[in-house]
């Protein structure tokens, strides 16, 4: 970073609206285009904006290959003047929002549809693991083919040995998210999870056990990005972007991932928003594994490095607790619909900040500010992409 680097310009005036979810299914015979089509249809229906007036599009999907976003335009009969393809998994939501925000600020697009959706056939997950990246093909998949389970087992074990975390600490995160999920009709998991059940679950890759893992599924998540005046004109409930950061391949020399790229940019995030971490009313963290949630609590400044275990013991993480986290149930309890897992926190945060009827049962009372973070792409031994955004309730 040189002194000459300019500070980020503000995201002022950018609104996010119209969160939609294409209901998840554990397995589906539909392909990615079907799920993306459903998401676009819902965006048009809920926003009242004609398909022709949506002039910007981002698409995030793994199962779309060999197509990219451009193939989607012809498939759905769209003619956007601004287009981006962002298949970065858990970071795709924050990345799509940032790009779309700049496009509407610059006038390159008026209304941008940000869509993430993935198919899930019976064979999809296994096929995706082996072909996920060149590094995975050459240097991780041949070792037991456990996919991200083995990588996050290394990370979780190293974190436990370094900072003294215990399995029950991770269990608190998972159990609270399940409680939230029971108030989300779209969550795949419908029964409560106790800490005993969490601890007694069968091992997958020590110290990762069954309830540390997400359930891969098919589904879609999407939202619209536009200027605030446009949202007001349309009468759309919306939230405002107060700050956003992104970083890739941070701390590449760390031998094992125990801190994420959020740390590099978090001061900028909070200074854009003009707030400190304690002003945040809820967080939607990326939760492919609970250790990653703990890393985000630390690296986004809610507690110091290594204090994650004490933090989760001291706080209540349910939507009605003193530190609401993943109020939808997160991927751990709602399901991981591929790239849509990277959008789940954003659609949930928009709903919370616009008092959407969908979240009535799991609302965070009087919430004004929410933080959504993303984490994506285990190409070899760690996740490479980190991002975060602070959203604010729009004054009515």
């Amino acid at each position, binding site marked *: 970073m040189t002194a000459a680097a300019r500070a980020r310009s503000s995201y002022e005036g950018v609104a996010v609206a119209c969160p939609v979810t294409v209901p998840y299914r554990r397995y589906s015979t539909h392909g990615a285009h079907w799920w993306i089509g459903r998401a676009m249809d819902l965006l048009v229906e809920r926003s009242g904006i004609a398909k022709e007036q949506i002039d910007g599009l981002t698409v995030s999907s793994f199962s779309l290959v060999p197509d990219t976003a451009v193939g989607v335009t012809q498939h759905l009969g769209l003619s956007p003047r601004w287009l981006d393809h962002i298949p970065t998994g858990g970071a795709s939501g924050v990345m799509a929002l940032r790009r779309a925000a700049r496009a509407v600020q610059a006038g390159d697009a008026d209304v941008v549809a940000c869509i993430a959706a993935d198919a899930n056939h019976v064979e999809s*997950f*296994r096929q995706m*693991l*082996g072909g996920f990246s*060149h*590094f995975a*093909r*050459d*240097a*991780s*998949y*041949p*070792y*037991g*083919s*456990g*996919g991200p*389970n*083995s990588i996050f*087992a*290394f*990370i979780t*074990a*190293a974190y*436990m*040995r*370094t*900072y*003294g975390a215990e399995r029950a600490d991770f269990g608190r995160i998972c159990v609270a998210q399940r409680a939230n999920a029971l108030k989300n009709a779209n969550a795949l998991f419908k029964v409560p999870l106790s800490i005993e059940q969490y601890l007694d679950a*069968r*091992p*997958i*890759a*020590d*110290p*990762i056990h069954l309830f540390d893992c997400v359930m891969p599924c098919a589904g879609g998540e999407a939202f619209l990005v536009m200027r605030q005046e446009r949202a007001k004109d349309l009468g759309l409930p919306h939230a405002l972007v107060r700050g956003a950061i992104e970083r890739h391949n941070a701390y*590449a020399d760390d*031998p*094992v991932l125990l801190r994420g790229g959020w740390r590099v940019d978090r001061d900028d995030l909070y200074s854009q928003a003009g707030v400190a971490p304690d002003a945040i009313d809820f967080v939607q963290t990326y939760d492919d594994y609970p250790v990653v949630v703990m890393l985000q609590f630390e690296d986004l400044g809610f507690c110091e490095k290594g204090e994650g275990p004490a933090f989760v013991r001291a706080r209540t993480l349910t939507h009605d607790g003193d530190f609401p986290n993943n109020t939808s149930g997160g991927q751990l309890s709602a399901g991981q619909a591929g790239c849509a897992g990277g959008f789940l926190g954003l659609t949930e945060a928009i709903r919370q900040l616009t008092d959407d009827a969908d979240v009535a049962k799991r609302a965070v009372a009087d919430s004004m500010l929410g933080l959504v973070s993303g984490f994506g792409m285990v190409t*070899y*031994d760690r996740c490479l992409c980190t991002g975060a955004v602070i959203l604010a309730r729009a004054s009515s």
Partner: protein
Amino acid sequence: MTMPLMKPRRKNPVLRTRQMNLPPFARGRTALGMTAAAAEGRFALQVCQRCKAVQYPPRDACHVCLSPELKWTPQQGAGELLSETVLHHSNDPFYRERLPWRLGLVRLDVGPSVIVHLHGDVPSPPPFAADQAKRRPAVRLHVGARLDRAGAAVLIGFPEKESEHMADDKMLREMTSDPKFRKILVSDGKTEVGQAIVTALVKAGAEIVWVGHAEPWKKLPGFDDITKLAQVTLVPLDLTNGRSVAELAGEIGGKVDIVINNAEVHRAYGIAARRGTDVARAEMDINYFGLLRLAQEIGPALKARSADGATHAAAWVNLLSIYALSNYPPHGTFSASKAAAHSLAQCLRAEMRPAGIRVINVFPGPIDDEWNQNLPPPKVAPAALASAIVKALTQGIEDVYPGDVAQEWVERWRENPKVLERELAAGG
């Protein structure tokens, strides 16, 4: 400590023989550099020729200075165990059948963090201790490369100190073709080399060694000695005779775990020193067609048993010659027959790979036997050749160049095969 492998119980003939599923073998072209080194028993990583940074996973540009000049360079492999896991679940059929499976994350002293298959003798990393002073020291280990059952290189975390039975580690046995408790065919027991191989295999723990002999009336020195060994069974085998090969395959084909094809005919001279093609034909008949006959008859049986218990069928060894790489004119027709055999052995390797059977090609320099009587030393002693073969089996090596001459020639051949050709034409 690894517990010694016990002799497996007799197979239950009612149960279906388990079929082979290979571990994932897809690798990028660049990554195959690691496989090429591991095939010869070396652990190599790319080293940047501009800034000396060591790279892993394999790359096409240096991650520090962006130089494209990355050279595969042998590594010591010393490092520290950062983390470990035991898989209880895998989406891959090969691993699913072999769970639980231990993996490690290792920080190499030269820089990169690498994922490894972790040997059972490597201790776990020290647990958390609130008092840093009471914390156990980090676990040191060394990393090596091996070919897995699919023939692709993988990294293995070995304990710092060797232990007596460490070769019996369940994971390591999947990467090697250890003769221990295995049933082995040696195609020719009449030669000094054949006898040395038989002796070495028995010493390495082979359960049965079937020893082929083509001409039972010929009494040759040393043959009685190996015949007396309890593990040895003589079997008639004439590689020039298709029926003889087929009969033996019918008898032992369903049992043999390792084939060592050491039968060869070796005569001196090239083209002009001798009239006619009889000698060259005899060389081809054993050295090339003999391999073809044996592979056609016994190969399928070997492939069918490659996942058959702890002592599954594992390997096929070809005794070739360093002359297979470039013709040595004073032994010109022999060189040609070995070049043909080498080419066929590459085909055999490709056909055996889907079954997980390792094909080991041995390229000795001149052997210290009667057919190389007129060549000056250094020559490879039969016992040294035999121990190189056993080492290849126990360490999972695929290409072996025993002896100083072979080592030097292969180096010269790699540097510039055309220069080597000219040098050999000029006498060596």
